[in-house]
Structures are given as structure tokens and as C-alpha cells.
């Protein structure tokens, strides 16, 4: 099993080297998908055999249930993002950076050492910097600059926190989150360390008020990069917060993290609610929706307990698949219409039916219309919130969620259904079809399969029940 651990990191790195070696070969376009599939298959192997906890590198890499589950999430979301959209021409450097990005996220998920986790998170910033700037131009550079500066400063704060936590962890200092959950007493400086570490990783997870880089970076990056960053990188950074919360709850009680995460959750939902309503750019709309969903994750984590935590984990999967698919669809829409303005895209259902249908299906999944599974995870979090004495926070969050719901539905309906009579275009322009949807048949199927999986989320919860309950107990909770 330890060999698989190394394969998860080694395969994407090898594929990156391959991309650089033959940059013009047409095969290069598909290598990120190969890397993503490797991660997904390895994750499934670990989920199927939970009894063992393989370790490598002196225990710095460790596959517990949470890791196995998150590997599946990274793999599945990456398959949707990299399979749903490929670069139009072979680009060795682009494919190599995508593979290295996947490798860095795998290391972050596998690491049972806060220092190594930090190195991997910083590596995700490094590998994605030029992917964000890939579109080029002033806007791409502006987005990449803000992303790298704010991302690096954010995780620098986290690093300071980790250092303080390390020095506060007793006579035999440790960075292993598993070992730290077991430590009964941490020195009095531990709360500062934990709070700084959570604050830092919250920057990378796009939680307000440290979210300002996110809408820029996610809207400027190419479709598959936005899909990966929004769908899974945010959650990989959030997984660090989950591990830190387990340490904090165990040593200091639940109040510290509950307060921090409640503030983050409500601010994120408020930011999303305000800016979704007035949004004019559909990629930014999706980016703000990601901030909203990170707010939901933070809310569920603040509430805590086995039900809310399991719902948070399932929500990570559902949101990841949906958002990766939607960003890919947004990229196709940009290609077909040549505009990222919501106002320029209308009557999509008649002018480009495949895009219109994909937008409607994806948005229904994102907003949690039945049968899509996100409504169940959100309900579980809300119910747990009322049960565990967080009624006020939960009620405010519900109100903000309704606003986001209304805002996103309004914009997507305007894009897909509305005949744009308000704009006095020439009549022929109003109804003329857009350029054809650039996606190939397999690409469309992969995205729809992602949405389909979200529709089956309640059914998936059944085979995943074991891994989810073991993962929540790894976070120090007894079911």
C-alpha cells in the first residue's frame, strides 16, 4: 500500500516530465486527465480497504480515512475539470503545470505533518501562478499578481501559526496532526498559533474577509484551472482547517474555533449575497458562489459534531463536482459567445441548446434543487446547527443563502431562457445561434456525469458511509 502512496505523487510528476519532454505531441493535452485518473483510482483503492493506515516518509505521509476520501474528491473533481476541457493545441508547459498542481494537492491531502502540508499548499500557489496568468494580458497578470501576493502572505501567517503551535506542543514538539490531537495539554501560546494557522489557511480557502484574490483569479484562469481551483483547491486548504480544529477542540475546547469559523462563515455568505445580486460577469458569479459554499463548509465545521462534519465532507464532493463542471461550461460559453458578460449571453437554450442545458443542470445542482444532493448536506448542516445551540448563526446564514439562491437563479435564467427584449439589438442578432459549442462528445459526457454524480449524492452516501464515519472519528468525533 505504501507503494500506492508514492505512485499518487510520482505519477503526476512523471507525467509533468513527459509533458515537458514532448511539448508538441498531441498526447500532451490528455496527460493531466491521466494524472487525475491515477489519483482517483488510488483514492478508491484506499477507500475500499480502510482497515490499514499506510504511511510513508517516517509517517509524514499517512492515509487515514479522511485522506482516502479527500483523494477520491481531488481525483473525481480533477477528472471532470481536466476531462471536460483541454487546451485547444498541445502545450507542454501548461500540461506540466497542471500535473504538478495535482501532485501538490495530493501531497497536501496525504501529509500528516502541518509543515509538509504548508509546503504543499504553497506549492499549489507556485504551480497555479502561471496557469492563472495563462490567458495573458493586463487582467490575467493583475489576477496572478494579487493571487500570488495575497496567497503567499496568507499562508505565511499560517506558517507563523504552525511555528508557534510547534513550540507550544510540549517537550517533544510535533507537527503531526494525529499526534497533536492526542496531546492533552498545550502551552498557553497554543491558541495564538492555532488562530493564526486557521486565519492563514482561510485565505487559501477563500473565506471572507481574506477572499479578495479569489474572484479575480478564478475568473481570469482558463476553464479547467478555474474548475480545479474552485472545485477542489479551496477544499484542500479547508481540510487543513478541519485538522487544526480537531487539535484545537481537543486541547482548548470548541469555543475558539467555533467563534472564528462562525465569523468567517457569516462574512463569506454576506459577501457572496451582496456581490452575486449585482454581478455582471458569469465567471465571477461562479467565483462568488464558491465563496458562498466555503461559507457553508465553515458553518458546518463551526457547528461540529458527527452529523454536520459528515455533511461538510459530502458537501465538499458535491460542490467540487458541480463547480468544476460549471466552470468548464463557462469556458465553453466564453468560447462560443466571445463575451463573459451575463448581459451578452441570452436565449442560450435556443441559440446553443447543449450549453443552455448544461448551465441549467449545473445551476440546479449548485443551488440544491432535488434530486441534486447538495440540498441534503445543507439541510443536515442547518438541522445540526439548531440542535447544537447555534440557532442564531444558522438563521442568519439561511437568510443569506436565500439571497444567493435568488441572485444566482436570476442571472442563470436570464442567460438561458430570457429573450433579451430589453436590449435593442438588431432582430436577427437577437435570435441568431452562437458559434457552436466547442466541446467534443466525450467532454460533454464527462461534465454531465459529474452533475449526475451530484444527483446521486444521497445514493453515494451509502457506500461512502464507512469512510465518512471513520473520517469524522479521525477528526476527534465519536459518531
Amino acid at each position, binding site marked *: 500500500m505504501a507503494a500506492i502512496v508514492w505512485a499518487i505523487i510520482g505519477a503526476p510528476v512523471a507525467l509533468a516530465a513527459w509533458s515537458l519532454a514532448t511539448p508538441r505531441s498531441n498526447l500532451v493535452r490528455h496527460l493531466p486527465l491521466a494524472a487525475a485518473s491515477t489519483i482517483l483510482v488510488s483514492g478508491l483503492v484506499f477507500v475500499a480497504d480502510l482497515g490499514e493506515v499506510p504511511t510513508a516518509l517516517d509517517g509524514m505521509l499517512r492515509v487515514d480515512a479522511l485522506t482516502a476520501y479527500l483523494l477520491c474528491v481531488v481525483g473525481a473533481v480533477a477528472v471532470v475539470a481536466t476531462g471536460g476541457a483541454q487546451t485547444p493545441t498541445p502545450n507542454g508547459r501548461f500540461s506540466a503545470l497542471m500535473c504538478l498542481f495535482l501532485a501538490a494537492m495530493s501531497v497536501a491531502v496525504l501529509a500528516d505533518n502541518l*509543515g509538509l502540508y504548508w509546503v504543499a499548499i504553497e506549492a499549489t500557489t507556485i504551480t497555479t501562478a*502561471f496557469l492563472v*496568468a495563462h490567458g495573458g494580458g*493586463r487582467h490575467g*497578470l493583475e489576477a496572478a*499578481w494579487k493571487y500570488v*501576493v495575497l496567497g503567499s502572505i496568507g499562508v505565511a501567517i499560517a506558517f*507563523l501559526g504552525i511555528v508557534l503551535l510547534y*513550540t507550544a506542543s510540549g517537550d517533544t514538539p510535533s507537527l503531526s496532526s494525529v499526534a497533536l490531537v492526542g496531546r492533552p495539554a498545550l502551552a498557553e*501560546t497554543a491558541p495564538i498559533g492555532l488562530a493564526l494557522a486557521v486565519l492563514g489557511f482561510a485565505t487559501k480557502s477563500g473565506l471572507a474577509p481574506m477572499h479578495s484574490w479569489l474572484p479575480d483569479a478564478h475568473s481570469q484562469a482558463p476553464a479547467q484551472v478555474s474548475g480545479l481551483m474552485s472545485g477542489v483547491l479551496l477544499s484542500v486548504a479547508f481540510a487543513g482547517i478541519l485538522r487544526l480544529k480537531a487539535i484545537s477542540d481537543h486541547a482548548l475546547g470548541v469555543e475558539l474555533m467555533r467563534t472564528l469559523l462562525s465569523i468567517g462563515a457569516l462574512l463569506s455568505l454576506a459577501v457572496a449575497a451582496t456581490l452575486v445580486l449585482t454581478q455582471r460577469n458569469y465567471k465571477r458569479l461562479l467565483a462568488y458562489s464558491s465563496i458562498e459554499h466555503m461559507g457553508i463548509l465553515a458553518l458546518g465545521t463551526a457547528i461540529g459534531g458527527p452529523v454536520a462534519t459528515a455533511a461538510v465532507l459530502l458537501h465538499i464532493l458535491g460542490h467540487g463536482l458541480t463547480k468544476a463542471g460549471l466552470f468548464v461550461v463557462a469556458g465553453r460559453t466564453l468560447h462560443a459567445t466571445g463575451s463573459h458578460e451575463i448581459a451578452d449571453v441570452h436565449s442560450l437554450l435556443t441559440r446553443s441548446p447543449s450549453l443552455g442545458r448544461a448551465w441549467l443542470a449545473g445551476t440546479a445542482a449548485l443551488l440544491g434543487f432535488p434530486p441534486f444532493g447538495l440540498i441534503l448536506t445543507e439541510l443536515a448542516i442547518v438541522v445540526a446547527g439548531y440542535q447544537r445551540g447555534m440557532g442564531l448563526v444558522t438563521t442568519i446564514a439561511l437568510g443569506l443563502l436565500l439571497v444567493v439562491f435568488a441572485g444566482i437563479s436570476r442571472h442563470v435564467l436570464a442567460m438561458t431562457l430570457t429573450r433579451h427584449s430589453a436590449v435593442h439589438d438588431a432582430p436577427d442578432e437577437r435570435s441568431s445561434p452562437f458559434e457552436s459549442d466547442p466541446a467534443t462528445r466525450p467532454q460533454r459526457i464527462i461534465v454531465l456525469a459529474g452533475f449526475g454524480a451530484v444527483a446521486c449524492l444521497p445514493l453515494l452516501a451509502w457506500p461512502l458511509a464507512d469512510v465518512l464515519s471513520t473520517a469524522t472519528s479521525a477528526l476527534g468525533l465519536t459518531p
Partner: protein
Amino acid sequence: MTSAPMTAQLLATAAGALLLTAVLLLWRRSIAGAAGLLAVQGMALAGLSTAAATEGEPVLYALAPLLALIKAAVIPALIWRGARDPDAGTEASPVVNPTTGMLLAAALTTVAFLVGTPVASATARSTGAATPVGLAVVLIGFLMLATRRQALGQIIAFVVVDNGIGATATLAGGGLPPIIEIGVLFDVLLVVVILLVLTRRIRRVLPLPDISRLNELRD
């Protein structure tokens, strides 16, 4: 092995140099001069690491030369090269004047000593007493970050913040496990390289790389 008084002297000198260079960096606005100060700060950091190694594992001695190479040679050289561009020059419009900067630095150092004392008392190491110096450098770095408007000034501030965190880790905890330290070192180097490449590209679209003019993406 270094003898105990030698170690104490090395520690005091290095910690002093670290704080002094941070304050001078805040005051000096020429980028080329800042690169030189960063090199001195990098050497001070390597000195701290050597002093801490006397109490830790021998492997830490191997880390100090690597630290000196990257922090005192490679990163300052890269920034110096970036500053040679004719239009890089000095900070165009400082947000705070030098006197205010000095007063703020003094205030931040005081805060660092107030916050750092419990951290220092939590560690059994003899180097622990100097921990507030590391925190002061971090805070001064953040002040630079908030007040510098030019791309290169921001990169220098980022390096100062990282040097401060590195110093805190070394002083309070004797450094993190070597494999982590090396990973962190290369991460920081790569971030600096990426930011310098982005700066060069930004200069092609914006003649003066004033990052406050990067304001077209907003809601």
C-alpha cells in the same frame, strides 16, 4: 562544536543584525540598497541557525550553509537584478514618511516583545529569550507590505516577513524538521522568482510597476 560564550555572542549579534536590517529596510527606499540589506539579513538568519544548532541535532549545521546560499546570495541577487531595470528605481510615492515609519517600527517592536515573552517562556531553549526579535521582524515586514506601492518593494517585504518567521522558528523551537525547512526555503525562492517574472511582465503593460494601479478587476 562552538563553545557556550561564543554561541551566546553569535546569537546576540545575529539577532541584533536581523532587527537592525529590518528597520533599515523600512527606512531605505532604494531597491538596489535594499538588496544588500537583505543579503546581510540572510547571513544573520544563517548565523541564528548555526547558534541554534549547538543545542539541536548536528544535521542543523548542514542547513545553515544552504540558508546562507539562498537567503543571503540567491534571493538578494535576483532582486538586485530586477532593480537594475531603469524604471524600477526608488519608491515613487511613499505612503508613510520615514519618521512615521520609524515610530511605527518602534511601536511594533514593543508589541512583539509583549506578545513574544509568553512564547519565549514556553520554550526551554537558551535561544528562546530572543524570540520577540523574530516576531518584531515579521511585524515590520507586514508594515512594509502595507506601505509599499511598488512591485519590487512588495517582494522585499514578503522576504522580510518570511525571514522573521524563519527566525521565530529557529529561536523558539530550534528550527522545524530539516526536510520541512528545506521545502519552505525552496517554496519561498520559487515565490520570489514567480513574483519577479510577473513584475517584468506587468512592466510591459504598465510603465511604472505601481501595484495600486492594478485595479481593473473589481465589482
